[in-house]
Structures are given as C-alpha cells and as structure tokens.
C-alpha cells in the first residue's frame, strides 16, 4: 500500500516516458557553472534542431531564468491537461520560479522534495528529445529525488579545477557512478591543477574543458549573446557534440 502515499511518484515516470534522454548537470560545489552549462547546452542543442526541455531543479535558489533573461511578468507556463512550459529562445523552459516569482523561498527538505514531485508530475514535455536538468549544489533532497524517483538519466559532472570543487566532485562522482557520461571542467585558466585527482575517480570518462571567459558575465540574460561566447563555442564542440551523438544512436 506504500504506493498510495504519494501518487506523484508514479506520475513522474509518466511525464518523462516519451523524453528520449534525461541529461543532468550536477556538481555538489556551488558556482562551478552548472546553470551556465545547462543553459548553453540547451540553447545549442536546440539550435542543432533537437527539441529541448530545460528544468531548474534548484527549488530554493533557481537562477536559470536569470541566465536566459526570462521576464517573469510576461512569460508563463500554460494549462493544458497539466502544465506546458513556455518556449524561451527555442528551449521549452520550466522553473519553480514561475510560482515563487523571485521571492525568497526557504524550504525544509521535505518540502523541497514535495515541490519537485509536484512540478515533475504536472509538467508535460510534448515532443521533447532531451530534458536537461540543472541541479542545485549540495547532496540533499534534490539529488535523492533524482536518484530514487527520476532514475533514468545520464549525468554530466560540472566542476572547476579548484581543489575545493574537485574535493566535492570526487564525492559526487562516487554517488553518480554508472550514470556518469562526462566531466565538464569549467572556468579553466592556464593550469587545471588538481583535476587529475578527480580523473582517477572517473576512469574512462571524457573530460571536456571550458575556458574561463570574461564575456560570459556580460551575456547573462541575453541568450543570443551567450551562444556567441568562447565558452559557448567549447560547450558546443565538446558537450553538445557528445549529447548529439547520444541522441542520434
């Protein structure tokens, strides 16, 4: 009878049934670029003709809408046998921020999980080839909901070469092992020291390097500009190529 405790858990599977790939950008350290790489990957995949959904899993601190420059007063999901997310620069985009409206939303873990289940069980992704999930930092309810209730996904581990980020990433690589597609080493300047350590923990996994690019900051909120940055070029050449290969096979 346990199943009846939360009918949303089964509904999540239903909503994701026709999505070909669920692609998760994860990293337990904050500020390593999960959101930027999620958004860039989504924009660039869409420009290659794939139908892309993007969902912000960071319930208490969503920021992907800021990166995409979404105007919360005019852009909204529509109601249609559930909720259909709006299209933003060619990407079908869903975020808790459509309901929390950029207000502070402190949530204990049990409510984080509940909010994720609610949104994932009502959001429809009609015709989507790949659903990109932008994860929050840390290892808490969002990660456990992903592992326990979304289940079918492939993960890209985003990190910087910094020792703190690498230490966090090694821990997450262990949790994600088996689902890990690639490591995205972001904000690389000259020397990516420390990163070798991580690679010992993810043997055989490709590592994609995205440079630190000062143009990124000025392009936040402007998708058309973002995709033209040097960082975007590297994401396209490496990460998006990787995903495109997955989707074509």
């Amino acid at each position, binding site marked *: 009878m346990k199943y009846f405790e939360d009918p949303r858990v089964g*509904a999540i599977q239903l909503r994701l049934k026709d999505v070909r790939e669920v692609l998760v950008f994860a990293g337990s350290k904050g500020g390593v670029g999960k959101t930027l790489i999620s958004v860039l990957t989504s924009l660039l995949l869409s420009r290659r003709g794939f139908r892309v959904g993007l969902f912000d899993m960071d319930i208490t601190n969503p920021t992907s809408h800021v990166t995409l420059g979404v105007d919360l007063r005019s852009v909204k999901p529509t109601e249609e*046998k559930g909720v259909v997310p709006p299209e933003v620069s060619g990407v079908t985009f869903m975020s808790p921020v459509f309901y929390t409206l950029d207000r502070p939303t402190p949530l204990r873990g049990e409510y984080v999980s509940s909010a994720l289940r609610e949104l994932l069980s009502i959001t429809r992704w009609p015709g989507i080839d790949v659903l990109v999930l932008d994860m929050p930092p840390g290892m808490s309810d969002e990660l456990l909901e992903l592992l326990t209730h979304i289940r079918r996904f492939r993960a890209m581990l985003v990190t910087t070469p910094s020792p703190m980020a690498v230490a966090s990433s090694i821990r997450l690589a262990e949790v994600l092992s088996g689902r890990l597609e690639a490591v995205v080493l972001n904000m690389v300047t000259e020397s990516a020291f420390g990163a070798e350590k991580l690679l010992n923990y993810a043997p055989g996994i490709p590592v994609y390097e995205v440079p630190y690019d000062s143009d990124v900051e000025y392009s936040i909120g402007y998708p058309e500009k973002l995709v033209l940055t040097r960082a975007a070029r590297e994401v396209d050449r490496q990460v998006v190529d990787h995903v495109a290969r997955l989707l074509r096979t």
Partner: protein
Amino acid sequence: MHEWALAEAITVALLKQSELRGSKSIKRLVVGLGELQAIDREIFEFALSEVLKLYGLEVREYALLSEEAEFECGACGHSWKLRELELSDEVREAIHFLPEAAYSYVKCPRCGSRDFSVVRGRGVSIVGVEY
C-alpha cells in the same frame, strides 16, 4: 486545466495496484482535496472520471474529501488556518499549481518565522481505496 494531470497521477497509482491485484475494478475510492491547493471540485471530478475511463479503470463509488489547510510554526509553536490569511489572487494561483510556493508568501502570523509546516490540507491525495 492542470487538474487533468493531478487526476492522472491518482489514476496511474490505482492502475499499478490494480495490475498487482489482477482486477481493474475498485469498489470505493476516497480522494483528499487539500484546501491549500484550491482545486475546483467540479473540474477535478470531471477530469478524474474522464481519466479513469481512458485508463480503463472502473471505480464504482468515489468521494472527494475536503481537508482544511492548517499550518504550524516551528519557531513559536503557533498554529493557524489558511482562511486567516489574506492572499492575493496571483498568490492563490501560484499556490494552486505549486502548494510549496506558499513558503514564498506566508509567514507565521505570530512571530514572522518562515519555518512552519503544512500540518494538513496541502493538496490532492489518495485517502483510501476499497476493492
């Protein structure tokens, strides 16, 4: 209407159990409608009956149980009801889609804390099933 998706969640859960039991017939179903989510009974009832049909589930009798929403503060222990709050239409609509959005708009009326729990009356749930 997004109620369709909520009805579908209930139906899929019932279906899974039905498959395990080897029968697509249910004697009695009780669905809880938490006041916080402000589900329109008629719309939901319509959606549920349609979706049940679509999935080939027979529910001979069902009841929709309204649950009053109640909050309790983790800081001062105060408890209060939804109807004591004044919420704008925009906020009510946000909470209708995502009940946890309440944490963006509601604070404890006594001490101002945001660390409260929704004790009951959150949203749609399966209260009970009889076969």
